[in-house]
C-alpha cells in the first residue's frame, strides 16, 4: 500500500498535475486507449456535489468524466 501517493481525486478544481502511473491494470488499459497515459497533464475541472463523478481535462485537449473509484487509481505528481 502506497498510502502517501497522491491520486487524481486529491486535486482541487482548476488544479493541474501530471499522471505518474496507474494502480489498476484493467482501468489503465481502458484509460490508455482513450488517450490517458503516464506523463499526461491532468486538470480537475469540477466535481459534482456528492463527489461521485469527477470531470478532468487531459493535456488541455479533451474532457472525461470518471467515477471517484476510477480516478483514485490514477497516481499523480505530488508536488
Amino acid at each position, binding site marked *: 500500500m502506497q498510502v502517501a501517493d497522491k491520486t487524481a481525486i486529491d486535486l482541487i478544481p482548476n488544479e493541474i498535475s501530471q499522471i505518474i502511473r496507474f494502480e489498476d*491494470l*484493467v*482501468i*489503465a*488499459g*481502458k*484509460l*490508455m*486507449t*482513450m*488517450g490517458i*497515459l*503516464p506523463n499526461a497533464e491532468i486538470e480537475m*475541472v*469540477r466535481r*459534482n*456535489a*456528492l463527489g*461521485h*463523478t469527477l*470531470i478532468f481535462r487531459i*493535456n*488541455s*485537449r*479533451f*474532457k*472525461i*468524466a*470518471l*467515477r471517484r473509484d*476510477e480516478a483514485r487509481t490514477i497516481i499523480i505528481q505530488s508536488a
Partner: protein
Amino acid sequence: MSVRSKTDLKLVVLAGNPNSGKSTLFNQLTGLSQHIGNYPGVTVDKKTGALHLSADQEVTLLDLPGAYSMYPSSKDERVVLRQFLTEEKQPDLIVYVADVSQLEKQILFLTQLKDLGYPVILALNMVDMPGITIHTDLLEKHFNIPIVPISGKTGIGMMALKLQIGNLLANPIKQDETYYKLSSQEKELTDYFADRIAHTSPYGKLLTIHHAEWLDHISPNLKAEIKEQSGRVRFNSIQAQISETLSRYSRFTPVIRKALHLDEGGAGMKMTDRIDKWVMHPVLGSIIFFLLMLLVFQAIFAWSTGPMDFIEAGMGELGMMIRTILPGGWVTDLICDGLLAGLTGIIVFIPQIAILFLFIGILEEIGYMARAVSMFDVLLSKLGLNGRSIVALVSGGACAIPAIMSTRNISNWKERLITIMVTPFISCSARIPVYAILIGFAVPQGRIFGFEQQGLALMGLYGIGIVAALSAAYVLKHIIKSEDKSFLMMELPIYRPPVAKNLFLLVFEKTKSFVLGAGKIILIISMVLWFLASFGPSPDHPKLSDAQVETSQARQRPAIEDSYAGILGKWIEPVIKPIGFDWKIGIAVICSFAAREVFVGTMATIYSIDDDSDVSSIRTHMAKDRDLKTGALIYTTATTWSLLIFYAFAMQCMSTLAIVKRETKSWKWPIIQFVMMTTLAYVCSLLVYQVLS
C-alpha cells in the same frame, strides 16, 4: 454500366473512434442509399451504403461502430474486431476517420488496423475548425499512408477522398512493415499458432490469442490450447495490451505533436467550457435537463396535433371515397374497416415518432447526451444502473427497441441487464396515442399556471413510468448477482451544431423502420381483428351481409357482441371487471399485447364495424358509448385512469420482448419482464379503479 451482384463490389470499411465524425462522413458519402441490417447474432446496426467513386465505379461502404482500439470494452466494439478477424468478406480498404483536434488520442486504433495489413486512408475530419494548423506531409511520411483532409459537415474533401479510394483500390499499398514490433514472448506465441490461426497477419494472430475466449470461430480445442500455451510462456493479456499501447503511443506522439498545432482554446474548446459551466452545474444542470425534457414533450404534444388530425381526416375521406366507388359487401368492409383502419393506426404515429427522434437526435449530435450520462451516473449507479443507461431511458421515450439496443455500450452485464429490464416502463411513443385518446375523458381541457392541463397529465404519466423504471431497477439490483466491474469513463466531446443531413437521415431511417417493422404487426392485427369482429359462430348472426350494412345501429350492436372478438372479450371480462374494463376494452387490451398502438386501431375497428354510417372520430364514439344494461357511460374518470395506468405499466409489445430475448440470449428475462410489468399494471389499475369509483 454492367449489372453485377452486390457481393462482387469491393468493400470499403469506415472505422474510427467515437466522436470522430464517422457517421457524418458516412451520411455525406452514401446519403439515402444506405441500408441498415444486422450483424449475425447481434443487434448492433450494420450500416452499409453504395458509394459511387465515379460514373461507372461503385463500392460498398460499411460503417463500423465507433471503437477506441482492438481491445474492446463493450459488445459494440467486439463487432469491430469480429469484422476483421472472422468475417468471411474481408475489407479491400479501410478509411480511418479522425477528428483532427483530437488526433493524438484517435490514432492508436489506426496503427492497429494498419498492422492487420489492410490498405488504409486517413481522413482527417473537421479541418475547417478555427485554430488548427496541420502538416499532413509529416504524417503521411511517418505512417506511410495517404491522408485526405475533409469536413464531413460541409463536404470539403469528398472528391479528393473518392479519388484516393479509387486509386488505392487499383494500386493497394502493401503494409509490409508492422507499426508495432511484437515482443519475443508474443512472437513465440504467434509462431506457435501460425498454422492454426487462419488470419494472415501476425498482429491478427496476436489479437486472436488475446480474445480467443469469446471469438466464435475459434474451436473449443484451440481455445483450450491457446490458454494452456499462454500460461506456459506466462503471457498476461492485460499486461501485454498495456505495453503494446504504450509502445505505439511512444512512436506516434512526438510526430503528431510536431505536425499539429492547436491554438489555445481553439476548435470549440473555449465555447464548450462556457456552456459546460451551466449545463454541468450540479443544480442548474438538473434544471436544464428537466426543462429540456419538458420542452420535448410539450413539442410532441403541440406540434403533432395538426399533422395527426390531417392524416386522420385524410384517411377518413379516403375510406368514404372507396365506399362510394366500390360496391358494398365484405371486400369493401375489409378494405375500409380492416386495412384502412389499420393503416391509419400506423401513419398517424409518424409525426410523433419523427419529432421525438428529431429531439433525441439533436441532443446526441450536439454532445449533450454525454453530459447527461456523467450527471446521472451518481443517481443511476446507486440504482444498479450505469450513467449510460440515461441514453436508453431517454430513448425509451421514443421506442424501447432502439433504446434496448443502445445498451450494448454498457460493458457491465448486470447494469446492462437491469437497464434492459426497466426501459420498457418508460412511456414510449406507442403509448402516446392511447394516452392522447384517453386523457380527454379523464382531464378536462384548460390551463393551470399557463400549462395545458392535459399536457401536464401526460407529463404525469411519463413521470410514473420513470418512477416505476427506477424503483424496479433498485429492486432488481438486489436480486441479480454479478461480480463484473462497473465503469463510467465517459468522454465529453466538444459541443457542435447538429448536422441537418444526419438528423434528416436519422429521423427518416427510424420512422421507416417503425412503419415497416411495427407497422406490419399492426396491419396484420387490424385485419385479424376485423375478421374476429365481423364473423361469429352464432347461427342467428351470420357474417355481415350487404343487408346488414344497411340495417340500423340497434340491430348491429348485438352482432359484434356475438362475434369471435366479442366472445373473447366476454371470456376475459371476469378478470378485467375489477379494474373497470368492459369486454370491448378487453378486446383492445388483448390485441395490445402485440403492440400498444393497436389499441387505437382496435377501437377504430370495433366502433366502425359497429357503426359505419359516418367517419366521425373514434373519440366521439367512445365518449358516447354507454353500458347496454345500465346506460351509464363506459369511459368514466375511474375507468379511464385505470386504463391509463394499465397502459403505462403493462408489457404490451411483442417486438420488445423479442429484442430482449435476443439481447439477453434467453427466454428467462423477457418472461420475467412480462410477468413483472403486467402484474404491476394490474395491481395498480385495481387500486386506482377501486379508489376512484
